[in-house]
């Protein structure tokens, strides 16, 4: 088996007396998609922020295998190195595209930012690469100079995905990527994400409360309740044969269509 890309060891995060998550441990291998499900307030987003280098955990370690330097502790390395990881090797797709995009900057500028941040200095090449990525996320490259607010919600989410994938990351953090979108838009966006993640071999951590989304995207599943992992296994296994009472409740509360 390949070396794990991301290892989480006994991670815990407290906000004062409030425990947001505790005893979280798992591994993620290259190319693998891990779903984290649970109800609102289960600590999913806090966990994701801890994993993505944005929120220092109270206890535990997050270890990431870099391309050249082997495994590093995300919170032990210097801040410049961590921020470099964030804009090269990692991508974060926020639930709300307004959190992940610069609204006063055109779609092209948004997608090109990471390229320029890692040293691209040729306008024509940046532009070509951006057009290429807009095409890959199924946006019309003719809209490259338009502002995010002229795009629909689903399209903004595509711009955000392109903005993250342009530096060819190895690990993507997805926080409810389809939240707030209508069902048909969700379906096409999921389809796009699945094909991109599959074809590029990107590993991903996907946080959602939508079991349909994890069924479609995730290979493995982690079920969280009150900040702790209550069940962990292959997606189909967990969804078709839930063991923990809470998972059983989650699975049974999907409305049959």
């Amino acid at each position, binding site marked *: 088996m390949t070396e794990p890309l991301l290892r989480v060891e006994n991670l815990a995060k407290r906000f004062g007396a409030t425990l947001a998550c505790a005893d979280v441990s798992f591994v993620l291998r290259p190319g693998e998609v891990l779903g984290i499900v649970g109800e609102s307030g289960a600590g999913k987003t806090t966990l994701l922020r801890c994993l993505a280098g944005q929120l220092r955990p109270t206890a535990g370690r997050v270890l990431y295998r870099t391309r050249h330097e082997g495994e590093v502790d995300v919170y032990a390395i210097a*801040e*410049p190195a961590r*921020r470099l990881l964030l*804009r090269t090797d990692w991508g974060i797709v926020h639930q709300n595209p307004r959190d992940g995009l*610069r609204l006063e*900057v*055109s779609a*092209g*500028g*948004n997608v*090109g*930012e*990471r390229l*320029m*941040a890692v040293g691209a*200095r*040729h*306008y*024509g090449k*940046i*532009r070509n690469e951006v057009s290429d990525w807009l095409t890959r996320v199924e946006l019309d490259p003719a809209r*490259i*100079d338009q502002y995010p607010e002229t795009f629909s919600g689903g399209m903004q989410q595509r711009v955000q995905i392109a903005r993250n994938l342009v530096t060819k990351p190895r690990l993507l953090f997805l926080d409810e990527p389809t939240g707030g979108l209508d069902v048909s838009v969700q379906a096409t966006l999921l389809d796009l994400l699945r094909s991109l993640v599959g074809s590029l071999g990107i590993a991903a951590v996907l946080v959602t409360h939508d079991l349909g989304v994890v069924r479609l995207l995730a290979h493995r599943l982690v079920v969280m309740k009150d900040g702790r992992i209550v069940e962990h296994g292959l997606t189909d296994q967990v969804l078709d044969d839930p063991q923990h009472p809470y998972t059983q409740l989650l699975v049974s509360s999907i409305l049959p269509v």
Partner: protein
Amino acid sequence: MNASSPLQVAPAAGTTEGYNFGYLDEQTKRMIRRALLKAVAIPGYQVPFGSREMPLPYGWGTGGIQVTASVIGPADVLKVIDQGADDTTNAVSIRKFFNRVAGVRTTEKTSAATIIQTRHRVPETPLAENQILVYQVPIPEPLRWLEAREAETRRMHALAEYGAMRVNLYEEVARYGRIAKGYDYPVEVNGRYIMSPSPIPKFDNPKLDNNPALQLFGAGRERRIYAIPPYTKVKSLDFEDYPFTVERWAQACALCGATDSFLDEVIVDDQGARVFVCSDTDYCEDRRKQGFRGAAPDALAATASGAS
């Protein structure tokens, strides 16, 4: 004031009674000099300092005047320019101010000055090693219009995260087909910090690079001091396929015929007739004394600024 106090220097002959040499007290000068030393040690880095109230409003050069007051000595010769001109209100009053509170000699000649305080221009005449150029800076933070939070811009500088600055340039090329910024054009100093050169036209940016003179920048309202030491590499930001260029004019200076200087467009009558003249008045006058003549050497004879 007690002239024997260790914090005061005896006033020079002919200066107004009751002021320390150079207006600021010695303790303040010391604080500013420490900031200046740090600024010189870290080219392009903005050093915070305790800006003092000065007898002129913010935006009129309080930062520059404090820097000048801290580096000036009795032997210095001061020149002050505003938009290139020695004879505008701001330049004249700052020159008079230092004449009164420090008793130093003042000049309009670039080559004769040891300290040149400037607003919005770098003199056309090349500077020398024994000269200090002091810039008045309104907004020292080049990232200010991209990121409003001071804590965040400081972190961006600390980590050299300048992607957003590039995005700004990208947006200009995407929108206008070129980098449209004409003044306060951001530069990278010594391969590290991105710095605002103060609102000088981008025409002057190449003069910042590898300049033999010491360049000091003072922002009074924003309380920042930064510097470019002599012979430091200063590069204007650009793209490989959209390189940095400076303004060019189809005309020569109407007074002196110069084609290598920054030109101001001046309306000379109420019919809308206009001429282009050197913005650097000393440079223009110098050339005329040497016998150079433009197309309309008397174009400004009727206006006050041409009279000098």
